[in-house]
């Protein structure tokens, strides 16, 4: 590179910058924008669902289309919004937090992002094919999923592409963390966001191929005459569920472990006090990751397992409450006797702890197999996983965006609007999801477009909360847009109590974060 000019470190010009970029910040931005778009598209589908459920009777959509709304809403939110958002955060933050100039495998990084727009265009294109979009629930249980028409192979291919993207992204994260840490940054000195992502990346590499295998078997069952999941040919539809949830349960921790890392970064900053129990946080994360592989069949208590199996999965699932509890107790101990202020990231973090814990309580209730025979496949489950995913995973992402946005853009966001966004979201999201506990307990099954009249009132309230929550996210878009355009200049430190290498860089940081490795005390 002796002939290179001195300014070759800057980004390329024009649109091609974004297509050909190998820079961790550019790719992080692409991931986050993509996740935001998917969040809005998936959110629009949720609005269709809540609009149809606004009152009993069928008013707006055909039941088949309703089913594809619930299915694609879930696929977009999980694979298109939450996972890419966390990958975007990993891209932006991991090199800056471990004192590296970039990710270890920049071209792989570019490729893993650019698979995603194609994957999700392919998935959404099935709506325009013969028979419409997938409508068997995001879990794609056979034999129902095999009734899908022309779009079926396109949907499977879209899942494969998204899975390849995740696996490559995870390899990149692991290689970066294990090889590119600044001298002196031992594993047990890494920020928790880096730790949780390291563990998440291993979960992804372990489970995404399992999902790929499961959906490939669906594909051959439909087109190649195999009968992996058809009893008529010696297969078993329940085997699909075992394979799927062997992926699916670690997947739900993939969606929440990075959130734990984010909250563990934000709380000490705004409590102005070190994180309580750093090493037990690391061990708790690792325990949750381990347990996530041995609890999968709690999603299937009603399929008719042997009693020993039901007992095992019930006990193992209950055990997850222990490391999760350790995390919550450590966070509260971090807050205890701190000197707290409540800027927007802190509000979202506190909201996360309270509402994620509520989701944890309903999770513990669902773990109790005999009670699950009543809860299973009702709105109680819907309420549970939206508390852990919306007010859990998505709240942590919003907290992270508000927390690091000044670092990324060099501008402070509008604090007044940020707080307003938090309060409107938090009030409406509880109006949206809390009544769904009641609906489920009272006997309303999930994934239905029409319901008995006695469920009308809570559904109406839930829908109103949903419309407000959905629309209030446009505020989030506006706040981000405003901060990118301009605003009060951010210092390098940004937050008074912030600790960590990323805060030693300027805001916005240089294109290649650390050209010289920083020294770690």
């Amino acid at each position, binding site marked *: 590179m002796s002939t290179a000019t001195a300014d070759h470190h800057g980004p390329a010009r024009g649109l091609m910058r974004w297509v050909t970029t190998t820079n961790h910040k550019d790719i992080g931005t692409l991931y986050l924008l993509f996740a935001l778009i998917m969040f809005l598209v998936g959110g629009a589908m949720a609005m269709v669902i809540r609009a149809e459920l606004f009152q009993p*009777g*069928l*008013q707006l959509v055909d*039941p*088949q289309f309703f089913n594809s709304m619930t299915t694609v809403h879930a696929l977009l939110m999980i694979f298109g919004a939450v996972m890419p958002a966390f990958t975007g955060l990993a891209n932006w933050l991991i090199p800056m937090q471990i004192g590296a100039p970039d990710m270890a495998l920049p071209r792989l990084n570019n490729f893993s992002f650019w698979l995603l727009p194609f994957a999700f265009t392919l998935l959404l294109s099935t709506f325009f094919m013969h*028979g419409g979009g997938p*409508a068997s*629930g995001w879990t794609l*249980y056979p*034999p129902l999923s095999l*009734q899908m*028409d022309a779009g079926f192979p396109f949907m499977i291919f879209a899942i494969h592409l998204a899975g390849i993207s995740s696996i490559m992204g995870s390899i990149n994260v692991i290689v970066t963390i294990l090889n590119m840490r600044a001298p002196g940054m031992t594993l047990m000195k890494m920020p928790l966001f880096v730790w949780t992502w390291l563990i998440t990346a291993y979960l992804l590499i372990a489970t995404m191929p399992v999902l790929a295998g499961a959906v490939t078997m669906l594909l051959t069952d439909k087109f190649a005459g195999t009968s992996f999941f*058809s*009893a008529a040919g010696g297969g*078993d*539809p*329940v085997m699909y569920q075992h394979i799927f949830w062997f992926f699916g349960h670690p997947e739900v921790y993939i969606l929440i472990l990075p959130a734990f890392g984010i909250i563990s970064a934000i709380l000490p900053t705004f*409590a102005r*006090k070190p994180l*309580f*129990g*750093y090493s*037990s946080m690391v061990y708790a994360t690792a325990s949750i990751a381990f347990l996530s592989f041995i609890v999968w069949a709690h999603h299937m208590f*009603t399929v*008719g397992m042997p*009693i020993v199996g039901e007992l095992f999965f*019930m006990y193992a699932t209950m055990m997850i*409450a222990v490391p999760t*509890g350790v995390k919550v107790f450590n966070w509260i*101990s*971090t*807050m205890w*006797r*701190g*000197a*707290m202020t*409540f800027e927007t990231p802190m509000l979202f973090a506190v909201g996360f702890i309270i509402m994620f*814990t509520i989701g944890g*309580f309903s999770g*513990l*209730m669902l773990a*109790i197999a*005999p009670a699950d*025979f*009543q809860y*299973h*496949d009702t709105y109680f489950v819907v309420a549970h996983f939206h508390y852990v995913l919306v007010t859990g995973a998505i709240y942590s992402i919003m907290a992270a965006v508000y927390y690091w946005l000044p670092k990324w853009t060099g501008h402070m966001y509008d604090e007044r609007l940020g707080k307003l966004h938090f309060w409107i979201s938090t009030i409406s999201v509880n109006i949206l999801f809390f009544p769904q506990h*009641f609906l489920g*307990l*009272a*006997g309303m*099954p999930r*994934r*239905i477009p*029409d319901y*008995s*009249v*006695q469920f*009308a*009132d809570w559904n109406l309230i839930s829908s109103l909360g949903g419309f407000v929550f959905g629309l209030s996210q446009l505020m989030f878009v506006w706040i981000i847009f405003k901060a990118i355009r301009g605003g009060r200049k951010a210092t390098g430190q940004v937050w008074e109590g912030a600790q960590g290498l990323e805060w030693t860089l300027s805001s916005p940081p240089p294109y290649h974060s650390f050209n010289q490795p920083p020294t770690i005390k």
Partner: protein
Amino acid sequence: MSTSSRWCQLLSVLFGLNTGTAIADYALNMTQGVTRTSQAVYDLHMIIFWICVAIGIVVFGVMIYAMFRHRKSRGVKAAQFHESTTMELVWTLIPIIILISMAIPATRVLLAMEDTSDADMTVKVTGIQWKWKYDYVDTEAEGLSVISSLHPDHNEARQLGADADLTAFGDTYLLDVDNPLVVPVGKKIRFLLTAADVIHSWWVPDLGWKKDAIPGFINESWTIIDQPGVYRGKCAELCGRDHAFMPVVVVAKEPAEYAAWVAEQKQAAADLANSADRVWTKAELMAKGEAVYQTNCAACHQPNGQGLPPVFPALVGSAMATAEDPAAHIDIVLNGKAGSAMAAYRDILNDVDLAAVITYERNAWGNQASIVQPAEIKAQR
């Protein structure tokens, strides 16, 4: 139920004007049900719920206290403590003890629920897109078979844009069927659950459980109902387009009434078997066929036979429904179409119903083709 009345109701809720029956609509909790199992599940649910509430009060209490007292705006200076092995041990061990205290009653209830031994009678439950079939496999009801579909009135009201007055159905909207499952009280009934096409899940909240009905496999469950009554539930596992519209209705009767019901059903079955052997007139077939069509076919092919192309083909003017030879038409109704939502009706409908519905499809909405006799169905089975 019109939109404006919903808004009025909402306003009355918000301003506390809600009185009387409407209060009952705000159901909050799980039913205690009508069996010992459902009561045990309810008790377990409440124990865990109250434990969670207690933990929540302590945890959120400490947190909220800290948020009010330990604020920078109150001039506090942050402490700097950050490790304590003792605390970590305390908040690992206490939850383990609480979990064990939850696991013990849960295990007891689970073991009791899974014990299907010593049943007095057995009913086979088959989930079919989108109806239930009940076969009585032993006792005096042996051989009886009931197909249970969403009640025709509800079926009409739930069509897209029907704009029917749903309050007229009271609390049973979408929870009523044409033919319920009838069982005696006080008997241990063993259920064998399976499915014909996709996975369904048989659920009556008052009995305290749901169990998946899986094609090609048989699941077991049981209940003893002590109180005569009508108990309603729904399919709980997403099973396709009309998943929301396949209710479960169980009618529990006193032994004498149950015996009378069985005798009546047996007589009806015998009459039906006789009628399959005679030649039917076109008018008879058309009248019966319309009823069968509305229950079994109209969900996809639509009451007017126009279908919902491209997924559900139209029957009006279709080559198959208007061909002079009805063999292909009979074949697709008997055996279904692989890889599509078209189910096989050979085990769902009897010869008379099949002949009637095929005749109806061939002669309704302007179609004009030959009629089909029950004997032809029998020959082609």
